[in-house]
């Protein structure tokens, strides 16, 4: 039985950021996650580095938070951020008058919004709808949530935090109205252990509703499903938004090798949060709206569809969830509910995770009487201390290979620690250029337990073939690294099922052809469906 200063529940970006912040302030931290890092809303959004412009008109406070965090992340999370800048476009069917309101609101929130000639916008971003009648340039960008989450956890661990993945909080240890710790089910061994801490931080996103209820506290969450589509390559260099009140499918974000259109917004029952599936109607909506932003989406291969659940805190009975503030909600349950030693941090968004973590950690420190300043707005994340991709790669190797370049994209300056010797230069995932070196390092150092985890750390299987070529190789390497071939074989099955889940909603044309080929390889050639 181990005692901690603080236990953070939830391995999404909020939990990871909070664990890091606490660790940087010298606290003894345990992070508990029931599955793997970034499995909830963290890994199921656009990956948009908001400038705040989207909220400037409707939610000034969020907008200001966004632009401030935007500028911080561009400095401290450099290898996770793609500084593309973004456009807010007005289409002939939109009200050009809104553009003025929009620009004024942006400027008032401190967001640099620059009206540009539509012709110039088309030159800057050739994929944009050529019919645009207005364009505003804003400092939007892309952020890779998996990378960001992983880097926060790495840094938390470097500062002494412990991380328990695949560990589910099944109950609280209470002394009267005081939380003393948590009961945790180890999902692999099915053992329940007890962990003690002075404060427990609930950072479990939408599932925070359940965690809070285990402590007898009610947080009214509003599960809002958002569906997105990934296209197989990057059609746009800049983020493209519709310059109107936020609506469906009006943001197209370039991210790594792909681009993402989203989202929809539908209220879903809380019980369905664990299993989100994209419907044909959502696919059709995303495609038709998306083609208005960038007409080439009408003939770009779709890689997969996915959906996440926004952890919004409900304020009224709005059935769409669009009007709920995306603002941060930090609840000290001692003052709110009379439960001591328990804090919930929720609402907010990927973009403001650092600020959320800071607020949660400030609350923890205040309660613990610890006087330590927050460092996270200044201290770069591990890997983000170098320059851009090319500069960083050339600093490490005189003549970096394709795979080495790709690994710098994923790990920043920490790619220097990868070992490409012996057989480790072999390429596992050809679409995304992931080598044995990365697979081995992820298994060794990044808490990877199965292939799906590996995908979140390395992009294995996130390319065009969706695992057809690489999953079996990666599983073989995982079997070798862990010495557990039977488990790796089962992992391979789960991985292929997980990949297919995103493919079958859009399975026609080349995607169905790819799926059919993959099924032939895995069922007929490899016999994975037999014993």
């Amino acid at each position, binding site marked *: 039985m181990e005692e901690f200063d603080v236990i953070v529940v939830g391995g999404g970006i909020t939990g990871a950021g909070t664990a890091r912040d606490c660790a940087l302030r010298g606290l003894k931290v345990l992070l508990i996650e029931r599955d793997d890092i970034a499995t909830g809303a963290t890994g199921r959004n656009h990956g948009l580095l908001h400038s705040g412009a989207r909220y400037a008109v409707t939610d000034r406070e969020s907008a200001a938070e966004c632009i401030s965090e935007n500028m911080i992340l561009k400095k401290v999370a450099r290898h996770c951020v793609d500084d593309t800048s973004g456009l807010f476009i007005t289409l002939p069917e939109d009200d050009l008058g809104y553009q003025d309101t929009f620009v004024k609101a942006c400027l008032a929130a401190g967001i640099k919004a620059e009206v540009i000639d539509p012709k110039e916008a088309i030159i800057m971003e050739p994929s944009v709808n050529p019919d645009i009648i207005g364009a505003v340039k804003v400092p939007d960008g892309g952020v890779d949530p998996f990378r960001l989450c992983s880097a926060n956890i790495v840094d938390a661990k470097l500062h002494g935090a412990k991380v328990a993945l695949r560990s589910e909080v099944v109950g609280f240890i209470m002394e009267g109205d005081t939380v003393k710790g948590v009961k945790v089910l180890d999902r692999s061994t099915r053992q329940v252990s007890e962990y003690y801490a002075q404060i427990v931080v609930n950072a479990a996103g939408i599932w925070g509703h359940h965690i809070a209820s285990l402590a007898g506290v009610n947080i009214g969450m509003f599960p809002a499903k958002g569906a997105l589509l990934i296209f197989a390559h990057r059609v746009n260099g800049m983020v493209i938004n519709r310059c109107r009140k936020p609506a469906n499918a009006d943001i197209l974000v370039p991210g790594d*090798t792909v681009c993402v259109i989203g989202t929809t917004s539908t209220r879903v029952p809380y019980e369905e949060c664990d299993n989100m599936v994209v419907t044909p109607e959502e696919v059709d909506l995303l495609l038709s709206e998306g083609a208005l932003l960038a007409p080439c989406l009408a*003939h770009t291969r779709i890689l997969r569809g996915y959906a996440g659940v926004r952890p919004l805190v409900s304020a009224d009975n709005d059935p769409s969830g669009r009007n709920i503030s995306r603002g941060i909600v930090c609840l000290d349950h001692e003052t709110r509910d009379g439960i001591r030693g328990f804090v919930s941090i929720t609402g907010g968004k990927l973009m403001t995770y650092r600020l959320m973590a800071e607020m949660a950690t400030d609350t923890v420190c205040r309660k613990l009487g610890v006087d330590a300043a927050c460092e996270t707005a200044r201290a770069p994340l591990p890997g983000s201390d170098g320059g851009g991709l090319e500069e960083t790669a050339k600093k490490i190797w005189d003549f970096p290979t394709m795979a080495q370049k790709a690994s710098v994209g994923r790990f920043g300056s920490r790619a220097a620690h990868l070992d490409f010797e012996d057989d480790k230069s072999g390429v596992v995932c050809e679409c995304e250029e992931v080598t044995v070196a990365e697979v081995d390092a992820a298994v060794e150092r990044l808490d990877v337990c199965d292939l799906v985890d590996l995908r979140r750390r390395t992009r294995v299987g996130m390319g065009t073939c969706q695992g057809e070529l690489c999953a079996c190789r990666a599983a073989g390497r995982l079997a070798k690294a862990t010495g557990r071939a039977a488990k790796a074989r089962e992992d391979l099955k789960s991985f292929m099922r997980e990949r297919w889940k995103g493919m079958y909603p859009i399975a026609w044309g080349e995607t169905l052809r790819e799926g059919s080929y993959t099924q032939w390889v895995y069922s007929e050639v490899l016999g994975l469906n037999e014993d």
Partner: protein
Amino acid sequence: MQEKNLSFNNFEQCIKCTICTAYCPVVAVNPLYPGPKQAGPDGERLRLKNKFFFDENLKYCMNCKRCEVACPSGVKIADLIHSARRRFSRNIPDLRDRLLANTDLLGKVARPVAPVVNSIVSSKPVKAVMDVMMDIDKARAFPKYQRKGFVRWFKKEAADNQEAYSKKVVFFHGCSTEFQHPEVGKAFVRVMNAIGFGVKLVDEECCGVAMISNGLWNQARRHAEHNTRVFREVVTGEGLPVVAVSSTCAFTMRDEYPDVLDVDNSDVRDSITLAEKFIFEKVDSGEVRLAFKDDYRARIAYHCPCHNEKLGWGIFTKALVGMIPGVSLTILDSHCCGMAGTYGFKKENYKYSQEIGRPLFEQIRSLSPDFVCCECETCKWQIEMSTGYMVLNPIVILAEALDLEATAVANSVR
């Protein structure tokens, strides 16, 4: 609503089946080349993310198009590779590459002093100097330049007669006919005249294939624009076909102009053809009859050049040569000879070039034919140098095997 889940960006049709890699002759011998899948569709996705992912080793691609012929998904792999080189390569072609690329210029300079040049470039000390100074491999035999070019012969000996024919073709003779192998052009004129077609020359420029492979993109584009413009006048103006004797010239002018150089040739493309296809179509439709000599005898091995594999027109050569009564024709296995235009000249490629062609050379030696038939001049140079067997363009074989008088009569020419 999109119908096919498929991009106009052709690389996304790739479903990562890896078939292309099994047919790439370069991957088989040169570990520095990333291979067609990685250099083509996989690399393209990464390059769209960041041009830092461009790899200069794409230059090892010979542009033989075998990957494209094998691809079950219709991905234009080699086009992706060469268009990436065009967009991203920071390498500036050096003197050697510029010289090799300018097959026409080289010919014009070398011709007045052809005997001297021929003996110089075949002399050992000069080859050693070229090897060291120019990175042109010393083991390489140079094609010999002819003092009297094809065009000069045509103007002097043939041009006047051509007006007599009511039907005409435009002949794209190409650099090798002009500078090294005028006999191919002469054979073409004789055969065409015998089957009732007059030959017309136009102000052609080198097709530019060597400029494409050596990275002289702007020059290649200028040639493409020039030739396309010249063809447009005769194709759309006079309704004439443009007939080439080199499969590489024909292929480049049809497909590389639009796909790699972005030169729109859609109005003339279908009129650019190869002599064998042109003649076969006429024979097949009954418009033309061929009369062969009774006493022509030859054991011929046919090598289909890579670019003719891509065009899919090897069947016409097989059919025409197969029509010659005294010929025993063997079709060689489909292998690249390793030359790929100027690729095999380069010191850094010479070893690989020989290694790629090895199975072909071995098969030719084991068959021991009277000679090899092939529509491409650079395959000819490679095979002749590497095996010692003579290589003849099919039009030369036809000119030899046809009873030209009887053919002319059969086609009511005289």
